[in-house]
């Protein structure tokens, strides 16, 4: 299939274009053939496998994020997709064509590196025009296009400046404009925001997302920052040790992690070893908890997982199995919530995020006794290997 989206950056109808409606969030649910397919990709460095059989499919117009700790293979995967480093085995299809072994200059993509890799001796305009001059575009058209692109990334009038005279965030925008200039159908972002200040990062996150949405360009972003992945991506590919752990929307990943690794890597979570005891009931540190919606696993034992926000303060004194008496060991004030470290005996420690509203009027001191409830609906169980 050919990508339906127009990348004409000068068309004013861009944001209303029909392509955009179909793209973005809902795209992966449509049955249309995927724009980019990765089959069983393996990359070996000697005996070490940087990629260990990775397969995935990306729909046109999707914003995908490869998320994982350093060394998980996410950058290797991106570089294989770009053709910058060839895989050991496996194949890649872009827009229906086999690109597995094509060098980068014969593929269709634009890329923004972590370091931006702007040409320091060329002006902003020359940087952006770099890929256009080669296509035989006329001078005045190039100038128009450069101005349009700069407008689009929010840097109008910066043509004559040198990259060294711009701030990190501005350099990032120029790198983005340069990658987009030849109208590629695939945009690759390699940790694009990690070199920036926290504040600039949050701001640029929204802008890149909006630009991507406006252009409807299929985008892959590598990041180790879960917040970045969650806020920007339509779908997240969580990777670990050269393998894909889970693919899903940010919400799916957060609410239904398929493994302890994903649960731990995305957000904060309490992990408590359990032994099964009766139907829908498990035992943790001598206490019984009901968990009717805990997923498939009951088995012989494993790890019970619950997010801090799914533990709530309660003063109900019935004999609901999921209510326990605890002592506050320490507390951290986080603004909207209070993060409490709770203990029950020597064997059970929990972290709970309690909304400040629920604590109004009461003072939390270390040693204070408290009663909390673990939301039975939100408990997930993993087997001993850490899987569902």
């Amino acid at each position, binding site marked *: 299939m050919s990508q339906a989206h127009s990348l004409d950056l000068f068309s004013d109808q861009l944001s209303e274009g029909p392509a955009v409606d179909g793209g973005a969030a809902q795209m*992966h649910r449509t049955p249309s053939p*995927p724009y980019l*397919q990765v*089959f069983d990709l393996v990359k070996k460095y000697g005996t070490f496998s940087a990629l260990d059989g990775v*397969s*995935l*499919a990306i729909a046109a117009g999707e914003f995908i994020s490869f998320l994982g700790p350093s060394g998980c293979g996410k950058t290797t995967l991106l570089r294989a997709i*770009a053709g*910058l480093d*060839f895989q050991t085995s496996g*194949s890649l*299809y872009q827009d*229906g064509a*086999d690109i*597995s*072994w*094509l*060098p*980068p*200059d*014969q*593929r269709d*993509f*634009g*890329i923004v*590196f972590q*370091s931006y*890799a702007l*040409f*320091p*001796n*060329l002006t902003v305009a020359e940087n952006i025009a*770099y*890929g256009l001059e*080669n*296509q035989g575009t006329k001078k005045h058209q190039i100038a128009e296009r450069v101005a349009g692109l700069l407008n689009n990334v929010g840097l109008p009038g910066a043509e004559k400046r*040198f*990259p*060294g*005279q*711009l701030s990190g965030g501005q350099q990032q925008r120029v790198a983005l404009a*340069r*990658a987009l*200039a*030849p109208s*590629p159908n695939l945009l690759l972002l390699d940790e694009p925001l990690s070199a920036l200040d926290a504040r600039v990062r949050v701001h640029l996150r929204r802008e890149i997302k909006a630009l991507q949405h406006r252009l409807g360009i299929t985008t892959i972003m590598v990041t180790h920052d879960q917040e970045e992945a969650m806020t920007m991506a339509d779908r997240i590919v969580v990777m670990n040790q050269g393998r*894909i752990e*889970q*693919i899903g929307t940010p919400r799916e990943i957060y609410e239904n992690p*398929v493994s302890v690794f994903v649960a731990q890597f995305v957000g904060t979570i309490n992990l408590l070893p359990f032994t099964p005891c009766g139907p829908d009931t498990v035992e943790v540190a001598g206490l019984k908890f009901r968990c009717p919606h805990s997923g498939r696993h009951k088995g012989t034992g494993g790890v019970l997982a619950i997010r801090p926000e799914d533990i709530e303060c309660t003063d109900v004194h019935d004999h609901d199995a999921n209510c326990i008496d605890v002592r506050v060991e320490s507390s951290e004030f986080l603004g909207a919530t209070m993060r409490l470290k709770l203990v029950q005996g020597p064997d059970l420690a929990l972290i709970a995020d309690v909304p400040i509203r629920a604590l109004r009027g009461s003072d939390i001191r270390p040693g204070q006794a408290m009663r909390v409830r673990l939301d039975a609906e939100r408990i997930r169980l993993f087997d001993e290997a850490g899987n569902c």
Partner: protein
Amino acid sequence: MDTLYKRPLRAPFRAGPVTSGDQLLLRGLALLSALLLVVTILFPLYSMLAKSFHDASGLFIGLENFQRYFSEASLYRAVSNSFVIAGMATLISLLLAFLYGYGLTRTCMPFKPLFRVVSLIPLLAPSLLPAISLVYFFGNQGVAKELLMGHSIYGPIGIVLGLVIWVFPSALMILMTSLSMTDARLYEAASVLKAGPIRTFFTVTLPGVKYGLISAAFVVFTLTLTDFGVAKVIGGQYNVLATDLFKQVIGQQNFQMGAVVGLMLLLPAILAFFVDRYARRKQVAITGARAVPYSPKPHALRDRFFLLYCSLIGCLLIAMLGMAAYASFVTFWPYDQTLSLKNYQFDMMDGGGWAAFYNSLQMALLTAVFGTLFIFLTAYVSERCHGWRPVLNLIGGLTLLPMAVPGMVLGLAYIFFFNAPDNPLNGFYGGMTIMVISTIVHYYTVSHLTAVTAIKQMDPEIEAVGASLKVPQYRTFCRVSLPLCLPAVLDISTYLFSTAMTTISAVIFLYSPDTFLASIAMLHMEGAGDIAPSAAMAMVIVLTSTSVRLLHWLLTRRLSARLQRWKGA
């Protein structure tokens, strides 16, 4: 998980990576570079090695040449002489250079830039110049002959003194690098822990420059062991390896014995080379990336002492140059002290005349242009070519090897290889081409390392960005990489030009009557007793090198203004 897609029906039509046009070009260049390096470095050295195991008629005789060499006292005497001389010169120059470098990096004495410039004086002329100056000071008709208290300057004393002056800048540069790399935090820690200055010196300063000292020692040792100019002018009857090699090859046409002496020079040089490499790696390792540069605080006594010391050394270096300059204008030393340009009428003398100087100029220009082009391109290719590891490793090894090969050995090896009647490249022998090639090869390693450092400092993704924008790599090279490396390119070409102006060692075996060089003319005139004209020729060389360095300085200043603009305010 929703990744269970069916594989498209179309079978993959390729089984392995397709090499891009860019990579094909790089590989072609890599192959060409490797080939040229093999022909100009490996083959000649092999010819020399082979020669040492054959007799004059080309018969293989094993170690017989070596046996004969060591059975003749007059021959192997040169080995011990050379080692004693090199050892002494190394020790003295290291001590002098360490103190000078300490003054420049670790004190607050005034006039540091001036002292730095003055320290470079010996690099501006062939090693003959210090020796000639010494003759004017301490020779039979020298002005300060009495200072030697009856000892003769012609012999070991003269050689050591001349060598010390000549290698001083080389030792200083290496030591200053390691002196300025030391972490200031270590000194803060030492003073917080109440260590006195002496304890700090021995526990912080010395260990910090240990590898710099080792590295400098071995580099200087090789230079002094293999230098020809000083010993030729002032050595008198004192035999060292370099002069011996010259006698064997040019005087007696005994090429086999020449090859043996050549190996005597090559082996210690190779050993020193490996020690130096090891030390440099260690030096980098002990200076962490988080080191804070040391900036000295004023200390009246120390600063005054080093000002005095550096002034003394600086004055000696200026006196060395000044004496030769003065002598070059004196009509007839010591009888007619009127100043004239008589000694500059080179055409009236033996040794090629002014034509020799123009030849030198031509050779230096050719060396600078072709050398820079080849060295920089090879460095770029070896850094940016993917795959083809064996070829790249070969290039890597061959670009380091020249540093371990003394100039005279290289020249000798070139005779054996290029002068062989069955060599198709025989036509180069005796021409300008072979001298240019030998000079490029002789000074290859330093230039190569300069180029590699500059290339490594560029963002490695620049070419990847170019490829993703479908721009051929040669274009990105010309528009981005080369402009970014321009300072290094200028450094390399200036270095090649000035060394080509002053070199003697390699070309001494390769020149012909048509390709006399200024430095060789100096040697000839000096040998014929025309010392003043020899000094005059040295002045012409000094003037040329100085002008080129000045030009380089001006260009670099303009360039760094432009680089500043690229880097922003």
